[in-house]
């Protein structure tokens, strides 16, 4: 345990001193503010564009925005934040393989599985922190300007999207254990998500795919019920455990 915590402590020091923590906080805060800001500015922007739109045959009538507009924006923006997150941390493992810093730690008796566990713990904690910050900021502004009560199943919906992020990050961990460079890690993670997204076009398998969690925003409008995501949640949890376990097994057998 001492070695695991020492490595975890090293990970924390790394994100703090390399500036990654600040970048992530700024990123998630920015996205958190952007959601209500875009909603708030939508009527004003449409008014500004009304003349041009009228020339094209569009009539801008009375535009009403509410918390729902802001939450819709949240579910449009959070995938971008997740992509940025994956890109920033795609070299978490491979950077250490390339530089040889991990080699010295492993020769000191640090087992490979502790490297995977510590990095997974750090990545998931940071995702939870960033996502939570973004959600809390959006929620706070929405409560101030409008009424969050309009959105149904708000917390469940947010937790489902958080789980989607956890699933993607665990794929990142798996491919990081497997690959030698971060381009491979990004392409494999993105490729796996796209592959499952493509498979979700098949109605029979759609309910069992973790990518379904990306649509959790539809809970807010009441067009879907939380039960509809049960199988996807189970699949995501199984996939998360499977990815981390496979990552550990690969790391334990990895030749450096």
């Amino acid at each position, binding site marked *: 345990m001492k070695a695991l915590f020492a490595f975890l402590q090293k990970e924390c020091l*790394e994100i703090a001193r390399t500036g990654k923590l600040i970048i992530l906080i700024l990123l998630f805060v920015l996205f958190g503010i952007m959601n209500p800001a875009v909603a708030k500015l939508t009527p004003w922007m449409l008014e500004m564009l009304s003349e041009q739109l009228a020339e094209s045959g569009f009539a801008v009538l009375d535009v009403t925005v509410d918390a729902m507009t802001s939450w819709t924006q949240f579910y449009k923006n959070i995938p971008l934040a997740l992509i940025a997150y994956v890109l920033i941390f795609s070299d978490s493992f491979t950077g250490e393989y390339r530089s*040889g810093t991990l080699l010295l730690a492993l020769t000191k008796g640090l087992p490979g599985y502790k490297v995977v566990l510590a990095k997974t713990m750090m990545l998931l904690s940071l995702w939870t922190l960033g996502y939570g910050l973004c959600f809390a900021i959006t929620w706070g502004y929405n409560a101030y300007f409008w009424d969050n009560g309009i959105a149904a199943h708000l917390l469940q919906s947010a937790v489902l999207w958080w789980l989607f992020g956890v699933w993607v990050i665990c794929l990142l961990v798996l491919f990081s254990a497997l690959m030698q460079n971060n381009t491979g890690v990004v392409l494999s993670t993105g490729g796996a998500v796209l592959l499952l997204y493509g498979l979700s076009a098949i109605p029979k398998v759609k309910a069992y795919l973790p990518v379904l969690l990306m649509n959790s925003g539809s809970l807010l409008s009441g067009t879907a019920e939380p039960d509809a995501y049960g199988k996807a949640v189970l699949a995501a949890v199984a996939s998360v455990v499977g990815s981390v376990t496979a990552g550990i097994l690969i790391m334990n057998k990895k030749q450096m």
Partner: protein
Amino acid sequence: MEVLKIHNLEKRFGGKEVLCGLDLSVPEHSIFGFIGRNGAGKTTTMKAVLGLLKPDGGQIYVMNEKVRFGQTPTNRYIGYLPDVPEFYSYMTPLEYLHFCGKISGMDRSDTALRSKELLELVGLGQESCRIKGFSRGMKQRLGIAQALLNRPKLLICDEPTSALDPAGRKEILDILLAAKEQITILFSTHILSDVERICTEAAFLKEGRVAVQGTIAELKNMRRSDEFVIETAKKEAADGLVKMFGDLRADECNPLTLHGSEEHFFAVMRYAAENRIPVQRIERIEPTLESLFLEVTK
């Protein structure tokens, strides 16, 4: 007692056989030079000893304990210094050594004491800035400090002086010499003068096998007095000697210089004296590790 024993070690990368039945034994309290050309398998052998590579055959024992790939408990006996050690650049040397102490399972007070002592030994005692700004020589010295932190029985150094300037090389060799009282050092290098300066034993690696192994004196004696060199003042005289003694061969760079084997040494001297051949220089070639290296790795 032997700190490291390797028996019939084999390793292939794809279709390429890098180690093909390597046998090696490193006695306690020796500084063991591990010599070979680039690609001879030195780093592969060292990584196999550290459990970082899975051998395709053979056994490795460190302190009579078998080395296992992956989870490698024998690494508690080993300190490792790679050719270009890389550290977490955002840490200070002291923070890095504390991190190493924790992952090696050392207790806090021992780590603190040992870190201070080792940083003093390698001349980094006063360095409180981050590793980011360190020169290659400073990183190499910190590399030695981290390798010695958990009081290893065996220190494995992979070409520790190759990338350094003469002053940096001297510093590293002096530190290794100072450390030899307590530990055994396995030291891979191409720089044969470094081997002659600090090593007590050496092995020459060729095509994945140990071609020759012994003490430095034994290795030098393998080639003792089997060659001499004679340099004449004129080209005609050199040609005359070659004609007379068929096994004399001219130096590639200097046609006035001839190399000959020991058995004709006196005959050539007599012939030169009797025929009043002007000789600039005649000398027995002192055996060097370099000549042995070139012969063994030919």
